[in-house]
């Protein structure tokens, strides 16, 4: 299966390791992975700020970059949700809307893809880590991503997942919201930190880098430099690597 990796602008800029981890996981699941060099962003920063053209123009770019793949995968529920919204932006252009709908239907959030659409199951990994999991909003409520990452993490030998209170409550990121209304975003992130700390986990794990940066930023400001904040792709890749060394 020929998979195009939509790496997302945040992973590209802030934490490329998540991108490499994603490639490793996709290859371990039997995919041939390509990374179109001309990809940029799904458009949400502008679109959610009220600039509709950001959505339509980047939708066309997405079509140009990814239409030829069997499947598209992103390590983000948020970006995939945006991609699923693309067809609706072209109500007056049925031909484009149809092509975008077909492409959106084969565009998947990473954990959902690995569990439900990949050619092979991931080999079992191994990692000693106590984690709690934060459900990112778009993945959870738009795409139904809830059990998928938990199942993948649970399959890693040695990983212990303890659920935090209010795991499904927004962390306060919300893109530009986190800057425009930073005081509210900070309080929401703070609640998340308190709930995560109460589990005694070594790491807060999630599936969207926006949330992770927000949570990590607040954790560090609170003076917590111990708790790791990880994308599940990093955790799974780390597990695969440790598994291989045995």
């Amino acid at each position, binding site marked *: 299966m020929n998979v195009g990796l939509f*790496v997302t*602008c945040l992973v*590209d*800029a*802030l*934490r*490329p390791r998540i*991108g490499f981890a994603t490639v490793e996981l996709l290859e371990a699941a039997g995919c041939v992975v390509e*990374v179109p*060099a001309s*990809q*940029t*962003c799904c*458009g949400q*920063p*502008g*679109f*959610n*700020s*009220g*600039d*509709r*053209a*950001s959505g339509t*123009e*980047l939708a066309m*770019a997405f079509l140009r970059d990814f239409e030829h793949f069997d499947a598209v995968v992103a390590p983000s529920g948020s970006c995939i949700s945006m991609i699923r919204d693309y067809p609706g932006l072209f109500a007056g252009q049925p031909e484009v809307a149809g092509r975008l709908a077909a492409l959106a239907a084969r565009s998947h959030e990473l954990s959902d893809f690995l569990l439900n659409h990949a050619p092979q199951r991931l080999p079992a990994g191994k990692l000693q880590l106590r984690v709690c999991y934060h459900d990112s*909003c778009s993945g959870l*409520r*738009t795409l139904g991503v809830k059990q998928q990452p938990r199942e993948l993490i649970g399959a890693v030998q040695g990983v212990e997942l303890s659920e935090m209170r209010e795991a499904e*409550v*927004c962390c*306060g*990121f*919300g*893109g*530009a*919201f*986190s*800057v*425009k*209304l*930073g*005081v*509210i*975003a*900070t*309080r*929401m*992130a*703070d*609640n998340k930190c308190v709930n995560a700390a109460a589990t005694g986990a070594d790491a807060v794990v999630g599936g969207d880098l926006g949330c992770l*940066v*927000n949570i*990590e*930023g*607040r954790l*560090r*400001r609170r003076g917590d*430099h111990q708790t790791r904040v990880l994308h599940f792709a990093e955790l799974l890749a780390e597990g695969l690597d440790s598994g291989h060394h045995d």
Partner: protein
Amino acid sequence: MHATSDRFKSNARERLDDAGLQANLRRFGGGFAERRREAVGRVDDFEALRDRAAAIRTEVLENLDHWLLAFEAAAQARGTRVHWAETGADANRIVLEIARAAGVQRVVKSKSMVSEESGLNEVLESAGLTVTETDLGEYILQLAGEPPSHIIAPAIHKSRDEVSALFAEHHHTPPTRDIPVLCEQAREQLRPRFLAADMGISGGNFLIAETGSVAIVTNEGNGRMVTTLPRVHVAITGIEKVLPSLDDLAAVLRVLPRSATGQDITNYVSVLTGTRDPGASDGPQENHVVLVDNGRARLLGSALHEALRCIRCGACMNHCPVYQNIGGHAYGWVYPGPIGAILTPAYLGLENALDLPQASTLCAACEVVCPVRIPLPELMRVLREESFSRGLRPWHERLSIRLWRWLALPPRLYGVASGVAVRMLRALAGRDGLLHRLPGLDGWTEGRDMPAPQGRTFREQWRQRARRPS
């Protein structure tokens, strides 16, 4: 009601710093959300009930003029007088005229958010009438001189101690923390006022076109007394509240209390029709309904049309993490939370509530519980688009969006720009790999650090890896 929705940011900051309010918000926290979840679990197919309620509301709004006229005719046939108010001020004038014509001195009120929109109490009081709010929460707030902070639990922001102090001050009783005793005190205060009132003013959860009735759901029983004891009853409600039939009411009532308080049904469901029958011992001799537009008709057929489906359950605010952290007063007008973030700009003008549609992470926790399936995040985005296209947002925000789009489109330019940005951020970061301050992004760095980029961008690294033979 005097609006402070144009100062949302400073309102919110003030509420976040208010330790007392924060404790009160936390105390009840997800109480309603938890109860809703349980109530929804007790029915077979709540999603089907939501579909039905949404469909009923959608169909009514398609032909709102027809159903309103049908309601008017049926109500008039039962002796109810129907008044049409284009604005809140018109509604106040109409109620005052009714009061004057009937020689009214004392008014008792049950909960009406529409009367909060119009500021009815102030108008009646300045005309020399005494007005008593009889919903317990509203009664507390009347003593405190505060507006509601929630549409179904108006005093949710107040603690037991605050209520105790208020009652001690106004009732001249020793302070007590005993809730049944506090309730008893309120009852003793209110009972004589019910009996002495010349006019009862209520809201109306629904108008039933088939029978010309006003339907009210309450839990305290005060609504029944307000609507049946005084010789004049006035119901004041929005024009969007009409339902075709009693069957439709039954269908909508299956979702309203469950979504609101997590009750299968409210303690009281009153269907008020016409005036007192000859020879009957209770019911008003005069019955009026004031149908208030106050901006609603303008929404019909607009991009915000779907917001008119709202049945005022409060589920969106009960599930909104923003509302839960700042409380309702921060929103600065009658309707807080996600629905308020749409209705306030819609009714008061977007320029008077510019930050409200931005006051959401678009997490969609509201949308998945709305009993009439209002796409709340989408409607907030509609308002954001209007803000952007009308140039209402601050210039630096508009500029940064334009600049971002200009950079994000051409891949090469984006690659260069992101590469440069990443290097700059790396250079600015401390040894701990964190950015503690970022020029232009103090909204972020005031309360959070920014983890610095790990190194070169993924795309740069990937390109180099591809060049190298593996």
